[in-house]
C-alpha cells in the first residue's frame, strides 16, 4: 500500500494538496462509516448526524482535490503527472478543463466527486428513518472504494522523475467536438446516481424493512439517475454522429453496450418498483434488479478500464481493471449474501400478478428488459469468452448478432408500453379490455396501411409504425378519458391543469411519447439510410444521391493546437463547410468534422475523406438519414417527461377527488 501511496514533499504544491486532501477524505470516510454503522446498530440519531457531517467533509476534501487537479490543468503545471501525460500548454481553456475526464485517473476522480456530491445531497434530503444510517454506510463504503483507488493505483498526483517542458496533450479524438465536454459528465451522473437506490436496497436488506417504504424513497433518485443515463447515452450517440464521419450513432461497441446494460436494468427497475409501491409485490425482484443495475455500471467501468474487451473508447489497462473486478465481486457477492439472508422477508403479499393487469404487463416488460440486458452482455463478452477457451483472440461480434434480438425485443417492449397504462391494477375484465384496446389496434392498423400506401415495404418499419400509432392512440385516449372524468366531476381545466394534477402520470406519458419518436427515428434512419462516396473536382458539378454537388474551394486554417483543412461545397445551392482537423500531438492523422444540415424529415451529412494537396479535388461521402433528428428530439421529450414526473402534484385534494371516481382507479398511475 505504501509503495503505491507515494507522498513526497518534493512534489509540486498542487499535487501535494490534491494527494493530502484525498488522504483526509479517506480518514473522514472511515470515521463516517464507523459512526454510521454505530447509528444503524443502536438506533441513536447522534452518530447518524456525525456520519452526515463526515460525508460533508469527504465531499469538501474531494472537491479540494479535484480543484487542485483542475488548477494544475488550467495552469499547465506539468509537475503533476496527470497534467504532464494528458494536457498541454497550447490547448484552448475548455480542452484543458475537460481533460479532467479525458483519461483514466481523472475520470475516476470525476466519478468520485459526483458520488460524494450525491452523498452530500442525500444527507440533506433523506428521511430520518431507520434506513438512513445504513444508506449512509453503503454510500460511504462506495466512496471509500473510489477514494482508495484515486489515492493509490490511479492517483493523478504521483510524482514525476523529470518534469517535461510541455505535456503529451489530450487525446485528439476527445477534443474534436464540444460534446466531449458534456457526454462523460452526463453518463457519470447517471452511473453514479444508481448508487443511491443501491444504497437504499442494501439498507432495506440490512434492517429487514423490506416493506414498500424504500422503493418510494428511491423513486425520484432512480428517475434522476435514469434521466442522466439516457441523456449520457444519447449525447454519446450524437457525438459519434457529429465526429466519427460515418453518419451513424451506434455501433454496438463494447463500451456503448456497457452503458446500455445499466440503462435497460434501470428502466426495468423504474417500472417494477411501481408494482411494489402499489401492490406490495416483486420485493425480491426489485432488490435483485437494483443490485444488478448498479453492479453493471461497475462492470462497465471494469470492461472499459481493464482492456479485456477491445473498443475504440477503452483507456489503457493497468491494475485498475483488476481492482474494479474485485469491487464488482464484492458488490455482487454482498448483494447475493444479503438477499439470501433476508429471503424469508422478501416474500410478496397478496396474489401473484395476474397476466391481464398492469402489474402483469410491467412484469412481462421487465422480463424483456432483463433478457435484453443479458443478451447485450453476452454479445459484449463473447469474444473474451472465446479467447479464454482458445487462448488467443480472433473473433468479434458484429451488429447482426445484436439486431437479431434487439428488433423483436424492442417491438415487444413497444407493444407492452402501449397496453401497460391501459390496464388496471390487479385484474382486467376481458370485455372492457377489448373495448379499451380496440381504438389502439385500429390506429395501428391504419398507420400500417398508410405506410403501405406510401410505399413502405420493410416489415420492421411497418411494425414499428403500427406500434407507434397504437401507443399514441392509447395515451391520447387515456388523457381524453381523464379530461372527461374531470368535467363530469365539475372540475374544469385544460390540458395543463390535468398535467399539473397528476404530474407523475403525465410525465410517464410524455416519456413514452418521446420513446415513440426515438423508435421512429432509429428505425427510419437505419432502414432508409443512403450513403454514397465520390470525388469532386473543383468547380465541376457531380450528382450524388439525387443531389447536385459542387466543390467551390478548399482552404487551410491554423488553430492554436493544430490546423484544419476546409472544403467549401454546395449541395443543391446550399453551402456546406466540411472540415478535417489535425492536431499537433497526432501528427498527420486526420479527424473529420462533417458538415451536417439538420432537418425534421432527414439530415444531409457530408464528410470529406481525402484532400488533394493542390486543392483540385476532394473525396467526399454523402449520407442521408431520414428522421434521424427524431432521436434527439424524442430524447428531449423524454427528458421533459422525466422532469414532469419529478414534480409534486400541485393540488393533492383535487387529485383525491378525481381518484375517488369509479373509473379513475383504473386510470391513475
Amino acid at each position, binding site marked *: 500500500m505504501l509503495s503505491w501511496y507515494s507522498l513526497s514533499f518534493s512534489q509540486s504544491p498542487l499535487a501535494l494538496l490534491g494527494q493530502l486532501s484525498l488522504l483526509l477524505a479517506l480518514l473522514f470516510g472511515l470515521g463516517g462509516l464507523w459512526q454510521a454503522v454505530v447509528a444503524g446498530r443502536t*438506533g441513536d440519531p447522534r452518530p447518524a448526524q456525525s456520519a452526515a457531517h463526515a460525508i460533508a467533509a469527504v465531499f469538501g476534501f474531494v472537491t479540494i482535490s479535484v480543484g487542485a487537479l483542475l488548477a494544475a490543468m488550467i495552469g499547465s503545471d506539468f509537475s503533476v503527472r496527470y497534467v504532464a501525460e494528458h494536457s498541454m500548454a497550447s490547448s484552448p481553456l475548455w480542452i484543458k478543463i475537460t481533460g479532467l475526464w479525458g483519461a483514466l485517473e481523472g475520470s475516476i476522480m470525476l466519478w468520485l466527486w459526483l458520488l460524494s456530491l450525491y452523498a452530500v445531497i442525500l444527507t440533506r434530503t433523506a428521511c430520518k428513518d*431507520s434506513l438512513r444510517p445504513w444508506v449512509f454506510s453503503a454510500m460511504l463504503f462506495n466512496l471509500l472504494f473510489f477514494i482508495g483507488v484515486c489515492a493509490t493505483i490511479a492517483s493523478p498526483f504521483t510524482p514525476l522523475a523529470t518534469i517535461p517542458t510541455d505535456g503529451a496533450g489530450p487525446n485528439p479524438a476527445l477534443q474534436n467536438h464540444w460534446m466531449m465536454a458534456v457526454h462523460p459528465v452526463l453518463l457519470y451522473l447517471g452511473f453514479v446516481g444508481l448508487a443511491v437506490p443501491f444504497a437504499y436496497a442494501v439498507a432495506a436488506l440490512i434492517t429487514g424493512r423490506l416493506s414498500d417504504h424504500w422503493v418510494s424513497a428511491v423513486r425520484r433518485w432512480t428517475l434522476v439517475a435514469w434521466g442522466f443515463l439516457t441523456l449520457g447515452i444519447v449525447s454519446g450517440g450524437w457525438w459519434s454522429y457529429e465526429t466519427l464521419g460515418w453518419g451513424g450513432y451506434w455501433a454496438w461497441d463494447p463500451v456503448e453496450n456497457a452503458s446500455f446494460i445499466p440503462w435497460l436494468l434501470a428502466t426495468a427497475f423504474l417500472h417494477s418498483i411501481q408494482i411494489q409501491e402499489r401492490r406490495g409485490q416483486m420485493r425480491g425482484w426489485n432488490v435483485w434488479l437494483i443490485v444488478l443495475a448498479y453492479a453493471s455500471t461497475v462492470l462497465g467501468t471494469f470492461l472499459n478500464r481493464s482492456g479485456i474487451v477491445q473498443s475504440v473508447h477503452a483507456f489503457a489497462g493497468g491494475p485498475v481493471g483488476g481492482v474494479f473486478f474485485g469491487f464488482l465481486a464484492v458488490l455482487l457477492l454482498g448483494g447475493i449474501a444479503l438477499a439470501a439472508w433476508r429471503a424469508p422477508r422478501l416474500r410478496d403479499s397478496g396474489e401473484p400478478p395476474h397476466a391481464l393487469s398492469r402489474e402483469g404487463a410491467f412484469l412481462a416488460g421487465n422480463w424483456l428488459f432483463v433478457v435484453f440486458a443479458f443478451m447485450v452482455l453476452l454479445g459484449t463478452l463473447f469474444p473474451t469468452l472465446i479467447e479464454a477457451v482458445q487462448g488467443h*483472440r480472433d473473433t*468479434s461480434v*458484429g451488429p447482426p*448478432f445484436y439486431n437479431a*434480438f434487439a428488433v423483436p425485443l424492442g417491438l415487444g417492449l413497444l407493444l407492452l408500453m402501449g397496453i401497460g397504462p391501459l390496464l388496471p391494477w390487479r385484474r382486467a375484465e376481458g370485455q372492457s379490455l377489448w373495448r379499451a384496446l380496440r381504438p389502439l389496434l385500429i390506429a395501428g392498423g391504419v398507420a400500417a396501411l398508410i405506410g403501405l400506401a406510401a410505399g413502405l415495404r420493410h416489415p420492421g418499419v411497418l411494425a414499428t409504425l403500427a406500434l407507434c400509432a397504437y401507443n399514441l392512440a392509447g395515451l391520447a385516449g387515456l388523457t381524453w378519458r381523464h379530461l372527461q372524468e374531470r368535467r363530469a366531476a365539475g372540475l374544469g381545466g385544460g390540458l395543463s391543469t390535468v398535467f399539473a394534477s397528476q404530474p407523475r402520470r403525465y410525465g410517464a406519458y410524455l416519456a413514452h411519447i418521446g420513446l415513440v419518436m426515438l423508435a421512429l427515428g432509429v428505425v427510419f434512419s437505419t432502414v432508409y439510410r443512403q450513403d454514397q462516396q465520390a470525388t469532386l473536382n473543383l468547380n465541376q458539378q457531380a450528382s450524388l444521391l439525387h443531389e447536385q454537388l459542387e466543390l467551390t474551394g478548399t482552404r487551410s486554417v491554423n488553430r492554436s493546437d493544430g490546423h484544419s483543412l476546409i472544403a467549401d461545397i454546395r449541395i443543391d445551392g446550399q453551402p456546406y463547410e466540411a472540415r478535417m482537423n489535425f492536431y499537433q500531438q497526432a501528427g*498527420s492523422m486526420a479527424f473529420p468534422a462533417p458538415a451536417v444540415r439538420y432537418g425534421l424529415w432527414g439530415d444531409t451529412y457530408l464528410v470529406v*475523406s*481525402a484532400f488533394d494537396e493542390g486543392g483540385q479535388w476532394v473525396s467526399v461521402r454523402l449520407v442521408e438519414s431520414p428522421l434521424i433528428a427524431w432521436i434527439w428530439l424524442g430524447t428531449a421529450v423524454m427528458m421533459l417527461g422525466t422532469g414532469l414526473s419529478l414534480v409534486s402534484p400541485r393540488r393533492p385534494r383535487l387529485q383525491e377527488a378525481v381518484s375517488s371516481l369509479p373509473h379513475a382507479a383504473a386510470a391513475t398511475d
Partner: protein
Amino acid sequence: MTQPERGVTPLPQAKRRRRSPLPSILGGGALLGLAAFLAFGSLGQSLEYFKTPSEYQLEQSTLAGKPLRLGGLAQAAEYDPQTLNLSFQLTDGSVTYPVQYTGAVSDMFQEGQGVVVRGRFSESAQGADPGVFQADELIVKHSEEYKVPETQAEIDQLRDLLESAE
C-alpha cells in the same frame, strides 16, 4: 437488530405464502431461449474472425465465404482518386492476397502501411486460389513500426500490433 425509532411502528411482516416460482422461471427461460435462438442463429454470420493471410491459408476450407477481418501490410497499392478504386496486395511476409476496395483513401495510405480490411473473399473463387478479397471497410493502422516480417516471431508481433490497435 435495529431498534424501531420513536413514532415508527414496525410494519407487519409479509405473510408467508407458498408460491411456486415455476411460472416466472419458465416464462423467463422461454424468453431467454428464444432470444438466444434468434441471436445464435445469426451468430454464424455475425461472428467475424481476425486472420492474417497465412492463417487464412491454413483455414481456408472452413473460412471461405465468411465475413472476415484480414490484417497485414499493404503493398503495390494502386489508387485512382477519381473513381475511388483501390487495389493492393495484403501480406504478412509469407502469404499475400489481393484486396479490392472502393472508397476514399487519405494520403496516409502508403506502401508498407499496416491495414485491417473487413469483408470477404469473392464467391467465384475455386480450389486453392481464394480470389480477390472484397473489402467493405478499410482500417488503416498508423504506426511507425511496420516492416515486412521474416520470422514467425515477427509475424506474431505484427498480428498483435494490428489487432490490439482496434
